[in-house]
């Protein structure tokens, strides 16, 4: 239990100004428990972005002067660092996007157009975020292909048998959340990838909830593509990543057309730039990439072993206390270790929006609603739920504030 002290949490929290700033109205600091939506940003990230705009800003990749070269350098350094972060073979395999949603849309459009023919199938799971479901449905529709849904059991587990049952030679693409944003369950991507490859299908992992919290090694998992967002891992909003194996990226058509993604354009012909620039049309978000770079530096200072240990400790701490609250239903596994910082719940007789609102009156910040995963919630037989999601900088004190409100909440609603 004492292991988390290795992280010197009070020192870490000083880096996150927002966690130490009391609201004027209440005099309390936030107990921020909505990290799956977006994390707070440490000073080093904010300072790196500020430094970029104060000292290095120009339009990267095209200018022929020192500032533009400096901007290009920091942008491309971020690409190299990102490749190292997920153990990609080449920096060119990293495409910068706005966020995981854009990465998945890029794939569904470009990879979909390249691969899909009438009668083909795309496999997605019932637990996908809308952003890993709707783009594939649209791609299937464009090519008269079909989306097949893979179901988890009621505790959120997808078995090898269930996966094999939906696979066939017709399946061209499998796209799956690495960690579910509702259930917190971590899917056994490595096993599923090897099965998908046996059928000749390509495998896309949505790493939005995994990359910020655990070591994700694309070579070890052998995923063909991985999408994630910077803002869920301490970086600014507006910078995201699509990793893809080079051979596929090279073969895929561009997603958006415009500046910076071409070699030559004549009136009736165009030669596209090389990977990754082919997929980065228009002026890129160099400031965001610099922020992402600083965010990865921050995470690397501790390493995922320590971060995971701390987040597991916090998850168990919250889970055990939540279990005891009268009238609560917790979704997903009965084992805290399977939750990866994400605990979705419902209180009998209280609508989740009322839960979030009353929590806010105690400055406890959590998410309520359908979590952009309506098909999953329907499968779980509920319309909406509440969710806490933890990050390493949270404390047992944050969780205690949440539990105190939770215990009293039904009473406040007259129950």
């Amino acid at each position, binding site marked *: 239990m004492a292991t988390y002290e290795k992280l010197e949490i009070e020192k870490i929290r000083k880096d996150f100004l927002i966690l130490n700033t009391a609201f004027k109205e209440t005099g309390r600091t936030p107990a921020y428990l909505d990290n799956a939506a977006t994390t707070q940003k440490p000073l080093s990230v904010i300072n790196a972005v500020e430094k970029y705009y104060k000292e290095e800003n120009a339009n990267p990749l095209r200018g022929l002067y020192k500032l533009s070269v400096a901007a290009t350098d920091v942008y491309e350094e971020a690409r190299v660092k990102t490749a190292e972060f997920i153990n990609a073979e080449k920096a060119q395999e990293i495409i910068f996007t706005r966020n995981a949603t854009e990465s998945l849309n890029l794939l569904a459009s470009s990879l979909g157009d390249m691969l899909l023919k009438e009668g083909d199938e795309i496999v997605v799971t019932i637990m996908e975020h809308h952003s890993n479901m709707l783009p594939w449905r649209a791609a299937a529709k464009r090519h008269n292909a079909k989306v097949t849904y893979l179901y988890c059991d009621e505790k959120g587990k997808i078995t090898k048998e269930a996966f094999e049952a939906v696979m066939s030679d017709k399946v061209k693409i499998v796209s799956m959340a690495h960690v579910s944003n509702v259930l917190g369950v971590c899917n056994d991507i490595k096993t599923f990838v090897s099965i998908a490859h046996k059928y000749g299908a390509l495998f896309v992992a949505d790493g939005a909830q995994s990359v910020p919290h655990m070591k994700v090694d694309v070579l070890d998992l052998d995923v063909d593509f991985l999408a994630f967002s910077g803002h869920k891992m301490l970086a600014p909003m507006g910078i995201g990543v699509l990793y893809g194996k080079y051979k596929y990226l090279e073969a895929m058509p561009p997603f958006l057309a415009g500046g910076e993604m071409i070699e030559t354009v004549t009136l009736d012909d165009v030669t596209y730039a090389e990977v990754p620039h082919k997929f980065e049309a228009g002026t890129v978000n160099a400031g965001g990439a610099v922020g992402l770079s600083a965010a990865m530096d921050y995470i690397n200072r501790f390493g995922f072993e320590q971060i995971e240990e701390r987040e597991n400790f916090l998850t168990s701490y919250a889970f055990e206390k939540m279990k005891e609250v009268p009238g609560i239903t917790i979704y997903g596994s009965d084992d805290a270790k399977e939750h990866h910082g994400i605990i979705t719940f419902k209180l009998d007789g209280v609508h989740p*929006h*009322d839960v979030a609102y009353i929590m806010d*009156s105690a400055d406890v910040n959590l998410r309520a609603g359908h979590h952009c995963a309506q098909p999953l919630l329907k499968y779980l037989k509920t*319309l909406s739920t509440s969710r806490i999601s933890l990050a390493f900088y949270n404390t047992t004190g944050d969780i205690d504030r949440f539990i105190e409100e939770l215990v009293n909440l039904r009473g406040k609603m*007259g129950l």
Partner: protein
Amino acid sequence: MEQKPFYNEILTDHNLHPMHKYKLEDANYTLEGINPSCGDDIILQLKIVDDVIEDGSFVGDGCAISQASADMMLDLIIGKNKDEALKLSDIFMRMIKGSVTEEEKEMLEEAGVLQDVSHMPARVKCAVLGWHTMDEIFKKQQSEK
């Protein structure tokens, strides 16, 4: 903002023990109102005879604000004629937008407890769902004439 008083007895009571939450067998106007982003869902049923709301009810599922607001609305509008009901709706909508006189608020009786929603942008849709659905019913009724 200290929100404790917002979930007061009037509101929680209308949420937990709504007078008008049942299926109205002889309703001649039934319309569903949904807030897709948050999942509030009500089906408003009215019995309108010669422009008078003779009876009304609702069924549905949603947050305390959406359910209590619909129940308080029915308290007010049953027995009123169309013009009176639409006038109350206009007052309620303006109260939620923060532009209402004390006198007007009095006319809303218990529904006046929702005035604080004017400071809660995320909850406006919940509070107005019932009223909005009633307005839509009258639009439908008008177009049938």
